Every structure is written in C-alpha cells, then in structure tokens.
C-alpha cells in the first residue's frame, strides 16, 4: 500500500499549501480593509502622537513585508493577536463560540444524514413510486427554503407547541442553582434542538437528492446484478453494495458541507440568538474587530481545508481504488 500512503501524503501536502495560501491571502484581505486599528479611534485623548504610539505598539509602522513576516510568525505560533474590542487574545475570544457551535452543527448534521440517507435510499429503491416523487419534491423544497426563514417558521409554529426555547444555549440559572448535570444536559439539548433541526432540514434537502442520485447510479452498476444473481436479499444488496458505493460521493459532500456550515451558522445563530461562532463573526463585523474577524476567517478556512483533507482520507479508506 505504498502508493496509498503517497496519496495521503500528497493530499496532506496540498492541504498544507492551501492553508499557507489562505494564511497569506488572509493577511492581504484584511490589509485591504479601510483604515487600521487606530483610524477608527475617536476620543479626546486620541492625539496624533497617541495614535502613532498605538501604531507602533501594534507594529503597524513597520513595512508591509516586515508585518507579513511578523504575522506569519505569530500565526504559526497560534497567536492571532488581541481583540480590538475586548483586548483579550483572539483565540480565547473564538474558543467559547466554537465550543457552542460545534455540538449544534454535529446534531444538525446527524439529523440531516439520517433523514437524507433514509429517504434518499427509499426513493432510489422505489424509483418512480409515490415515495420517490415525494422525496424528490420534498428534497427540492427544503433545498429551496431560505435558512433564516425556515428557522423563523420553526419558532413560529414549533417552539410554542413543543415548549422549546428559541434563544441562547442554555438556561444560565440552572448552573447557578446547581440543578445537576443531567438537568443541565437536557436543558442544553432543548436549546439545541431548533437550531440543529434547521440545519438538519436545510441539509436534508440537499443530502436526500444526492443520496438518491448516487444510489440510482450505484443500482445501475453491473455488480448489483451480480449480487442479485448471487441470491442476496434486497436488504443485503442495498446495504452491502449499493449504499457502500454511493457513500463515496455522500461522504465527500457531508465533510465539505460540514466545513461550510460553520460559516453558514451565522443566519441560524442570528435567529436563535445562539452564542456561537457565526454570531461572533457577525458582531465582529459590526465592531470592525479585525483581529477577531481575521482569526475567525482563517480558522473557518482552515476548517474547510481540513474537512477536505478528511474527506480525502475517508475516501481513501472507503474506496480501495484510490491510490494514484
């Protein structure tokens, strides 16, 4: 399997190069933004000398290449600078929101994968039946719904009847009143359901269509006929052969979208007032908090690159043909 490992190595190298490009362009992108850390400052004591001093403190008086080297150096060491707004390290500003967002995204993705695979497989297997048509139309419909609007509809029509909270990540007073770990867990889950369901439903539309079409593709392959000839049951044929093969495009899709949902949670987190990474980014834009924005942007880009890489690795694991 030496050829295989060289594949992994090549993908890893590619990921690293892309990350390097992302880091560099990130520097450029925010250098292009108007103003710097000091220009937006307005206060009585903000004299030119004061601003000059500040610029020196932030290393903004150095030449661009010098700044770039310093920036690279810091980035490699995981130092993304300090927030303009809170003066706390960017990493710690981003860490909590990420921790909040992650489980919500995972739950949503799990919901969408389970729903999407089930309906997609049924639709492909019962092609041209009512179930198939229903799935295709339903998938198209959910794929077409604006995310934020779906979220609002869930609040409007589901939150009340199901008695689910529509904002924040947890009831803060539970921890304060020492309600116990289980109660806190249930509470967290409750807060997560609606945002996760939104992600789940939005992705579901896309997933079910893709699963269906890649299942149809797989079901048309000769090895399915072989499997039937071999006397395998339908269930065995679908799970052992068709699904296994159609998983390849699905896995890639899931990992790719996992990377993008991180950024895409902005809409959902805005609606559900969910203190995650999306909300953090949105606020940083409003505050012109460039270090946080730059850090978040880089982080999300790297996440997407890593997800790509993971998808490659998984592909490698799932598809024995991938060696070149």
């Amino acid at each position, binding site marked *: 399997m030496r050829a295989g490992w060289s594949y992994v190595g090549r993908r890893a190298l590619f990921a690293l190069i892309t990350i390097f490009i992302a880091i560099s362009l990130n520097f450029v992108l925010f250098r292009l933004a108007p103003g710097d850390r000091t220009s937006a400052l307005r206060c009585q004591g903000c004299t030119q000398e004061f601003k000059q001093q500040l610029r020196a403190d932030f290393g903004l008086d150095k030449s661009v290449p010098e700044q770039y080297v310093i920036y690279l150096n810091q980035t490699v060491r995981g130092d993304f600078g300090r927030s303009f707004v809170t003066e706390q390290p960017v990493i710690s500003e981003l860490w909590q929101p990420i921790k909040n967002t992650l489980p919500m995204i995972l739950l949503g993705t799990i919901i969408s994968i389970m729903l999407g695979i089930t309906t997609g497989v049924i639709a492909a297997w019962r092609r041209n039946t009512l179930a198939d048509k229903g799935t295709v139309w339903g998938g198209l419909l959910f794929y077409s719904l604006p995310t934020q609007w779906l979220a609002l509809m869930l609040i409007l029509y589901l939150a009340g009847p199901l008695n689910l909270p529509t904002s924040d990540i947890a009831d803060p007073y539970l921890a*304060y009143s020492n309600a116990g770990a289980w109660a806190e867990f249930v509470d967290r889950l409750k807060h997560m359901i609606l945002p996760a369901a939104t992600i789940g439903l939005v992705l579901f539309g896309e997933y079910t269509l893709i699963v269906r079409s890649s299942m149809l593709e797989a079901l048309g392959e000769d090895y399915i006929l072989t499997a039937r000839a071999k006397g395998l049951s339908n269930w065995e044929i679908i799970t052992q052969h068709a699904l296994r093969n159609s998983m390849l495009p699905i896995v890639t899709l899931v990992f790719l979208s996992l990377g993008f949902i991180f950024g895409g949670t902005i809409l959902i987190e*805005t609606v559900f007032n969910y203190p995650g990474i999306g*909300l953090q980014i949105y606020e940083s834009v409003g505050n012109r908090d460039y270090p946080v924005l730059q850090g978040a942007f880089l982080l999300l880009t790297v996440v997407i690159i890593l997800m790509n890489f993971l998808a490659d690795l998984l592909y490698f694991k799932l598809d024995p043909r991938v060696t070149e």
Partner: protein
Amino acid sequence: MRKRLLGIILFGAVALLAACGGGESTTPGGGGDNAATGGAETAAIKEGGIFRLGTTSNPDSINPFVGFSALSYILWTETYPTLVQYDTDYKIVGDWADSWTTSSDGKVWTFKVKANGKWSDGKPITAADAAFTGNLVLKYGEGPAAMMAPFIAHSTKFEAPDATTLVITYDEPVANVLPQLQQFFILPQHVVEPIIGDKGKGLKQWDPMSGGAQVGGGAFYVKTFEKKGTTIIEKNPGYYTTPPHVDAIGLTVYQNADAMLAALKGGQLDSVDTMPPTLAKQWSTDPNFTLQVGSSSFIYDIPINSNQKKTDHRELLDLKVRNALDLAVDRNQIIETVLNGYGTPVATMFTDLSSPYNNTDIPIPPYDIAAANKILDDAGYARGADGIRVGPDGSKFDWEVIVPENVEGIDRLFEILKTSWAELGINITAKKLDSTAAFEAIGAPDWKYLDFDLAIWDWVGYIDPDFMLSVLLCNQLGGWSDTGYCNPEYDKLYDEQGITLDAEKRKAIVWEMQDIQSRDLPYLWVAQKQSISAYSKNWGGLTEPFLLGMSKIPWDTIHQTG
C-alpha cells in the same frame, strides 16, 4: 448600536465639560443614604431571589480600561464604588462619599467616604483605593487608561490622608466635577496593582474575572461574565450602604427582541430593558406583566452637511431648502408607524430628560408639503423633466442618505422620508453602513466633511445638556461632529453656559443656543422614542428610570412580591 453610542457619549461628555472651568461653591453632601422609601408600594416585600433581566444591547468588556458600551457602564456602576451618583430625580447625591467640600479657589476637592465598605473578597474599601485608581489613571491616561481619563480630566493628583478622606486637586476650577466623578469607578488597589505591567500595558489586558469572580465593591460583584450570554452579579456582603433586596441579578443578552420576549413570556426572564414599540400595545394588555413607559433618551435626527466648503449638492446649504425639508418630515406618521405611537415629535436636540434646558418655545414644524413646495418654488429650484428639482448650478436634488445599521426602525424612517420628499421633487437613496463606517462616511474625506449630503441617525438624550450642545462646536470637526457645522456665535454661547453657575441664566443661554440651531438647521429633529420596559408582576418597586442607564438602579426598592 444605540447603547454603544451612549457609552461613547458618556465618556466624551465629561471630557468636554472639563474644559470649561467653573465656580467655587461648596455643594453640601447628599447625606449618603438615598434609599427610597418605596412610597405607594403595597405588595409584601420578599427578600432574596434572582432578578433575571433581558437586554438587546451587550456589555463589551468588564475591564473599565477597555469597555465602553452602555451596558458595561451599568455593570461597573453596580459593582464598583463611585463617590457620587444621580438619584431617581437625576440630582447628584453622595454615594460612597458622604459629604464633600471645595477649596475657595475651586481647585481642591475633599471627600469624606464611608468607612464600612468591603470589597467582595473581604478587604476594606478605603480612600487609598480611590487615590490609587485616580493616580493610576493620571499616570497612564494618555495610554492604556485613556478610557477612564475623561472622568478625572484636569485633576493633577489624588491623595488619601486617611482611610475615609480623599483629596483631589485640579489644575483649574472645574464646574462639573461631580457629574464627572459619577462615572469614576474606584478599583481595588490590591487587585489592580499587580497587573499594571510595563508601561501600564497590563491594564488593557486585565481580565477582572481571572480570579474566578470579579472583586467588586458596589452593591454587587460580577460572579459570571459572558459577553453574549448571561452575566450574573451577586450581592456584595460588604456593600457600604443599604443592601439590595435581591440576592443576585442575571443579565442575558439577546440579539433580537423576539427571542427576548419569548423568554419573558416563557418565564425565563423577569424583565426586559426594551420592548419594541411594535409590540408594546399587544403587551400592555397582558395581565402577567407590567409595561413601563418612561422618559426618552432616544431621538431620531437627520444631520445635514453644514460644511460651507461642501463640494456638491450645495443646495443643501440653503436654509430655505432646509426649512422646506423640515416641513416635509411627517413626524406624526413616523411616530405612528416607526414607533407605533410610543413617541413624541421634537424640534430640538433634547429629550424630556434634559428639562428645563429643553427649549419649549421652538415650535414643532407642521407637516406641510404644499408650504414646503412653495418655499422651494419661490427659491427658484425648478423641477426637471423627471420631476426632480434642479439647482441653479445644475445640481439635481438627488441625494445620498447615510443610514447606519442596527438602529431600530431606521429603514422604515428612511422609507417614510423618501415618500414624503418625493412629493417635493427630491430623490434620496440610502447608503447603509455599520456605525463606524457610517461615521467615517460623514467625515469623508479625512474629516473634512466634503462628501456627505444627509444622514439619519439616533441621538442619545442625556441629563446634562453640556455634551449634546458641544457636538456642534467648531472644534468638534473631526471629533464628534456629524454635520460639519461650525458657528463662532454658537461657540461663544457654549463657553458662556459652561461657566454660568446660575441655573436660570444658564437655561437662558442654552435656549438661545437652540434658537440658533433651529435657524441654521444642521439637524432636522424628528421624534423622541419613549423607553418601554416590561417586567413580571412577580416583582415590585421598579420605578420609572430603573433601566434607563442614567442613574444607579434602585435595588434597595426592587423586590420580589410575596
């Protein structure tokens, strides 16, 4: 970003005030204990409990060297000792200070402070803490402590001859020392001293929560702080005056009012600081909640570029045009539609909070399109083929309006304006920007105020008129000015009111300044929005201004009902 603007203004205001020197009288102390009696409160007082408050604005930092949002100020007001405070009638009274005297030259202020106060970690609060904080800010005021510097502007040294005496020396007599000191938060020396660091850099990076909880010295201390979540402040057992009824206060930040109101309705909150006007009527009939409609600290205004050097659309400099525009602002419809009736029209920069400085002689312009059209016709601005008026220099009445985002209802306001002004043969397009970018766009290029035509913004009404008046000074070009307005006559009056200690005389000057404004119209004043908050009927003792952020919240009266 209303609250944020409020924060900025608060700290700027005092800085400006400091420049104007002042009298030499001695103000008697407010007697320290300003606990309200609760008056007509009939429900039984139940001690303890946690008051859970929802807000749509957020605290940016609890480090006073960093944060500047209004909510952060509220948190510091509740958790750090201050020498004086506004009472519920917006009069300065003693808080930690029991009494104070001023030297005859007005430069030396001596405060007697309470001896019984303790920080939340058990250490006593002494005048030495105050002197330390003051001197620290003096030392690093041009650097890391810039955020705190305005509150002690013109002071030269802080001394604590004994534990209950604080002496502040100023380099000139300053008239409004007390309104400044109302926001001078006294920090625990034993906590801050070790983190100062090289050139004070540690101050900016200080995390007051690093010890697990903040070391507070007010009625409360911050137990948990979450910028976008819930911040809980707990009763400080060592508080120097009447302790609050509640055990703790929770402050949850919401990005949108909908979510907040759902939480209030669902019983996860006891109160919300703002009720959207669109919903207020619906809620006012809800038996479980009390809607509190109070004074306004919020005005919609339309800044017009008043820089005489403005390059294009110079027709906007024509006072006749401004008058016509003012007549074509349908204030009543704006109040009905944007504020759902929770507002009143205004013609000047002050809300009712600033009474009696509010010039009530200036009439609210009637909505009169015909009259406005006539003014423009008479001034010779003919309509072009497309119905849009054209100035004699060929300049079309087609203007760009800078609209900051995140100001409630401002899009709606723009639309109403666009419709009304279209009837005058004027077209406006919105340029929507985040508040920083919007402010930069107004000053563009480079704070020369040459490009922008008009803007729509909100204006924060404050108690003392000084800051609001100062925004229109010539020296504010590049500072707070959002109109490019400069009028030496106005500036002269401003300096005069700054040293006029007689309230009546000062009022007359301030009224005159407003007259000048209503003549020059650098702003069209539209409407003030009443503050609307709501709280559950399980709570009592909440008096009108409890969440306006202008004074210390009267926790000694707010309580759970039995």
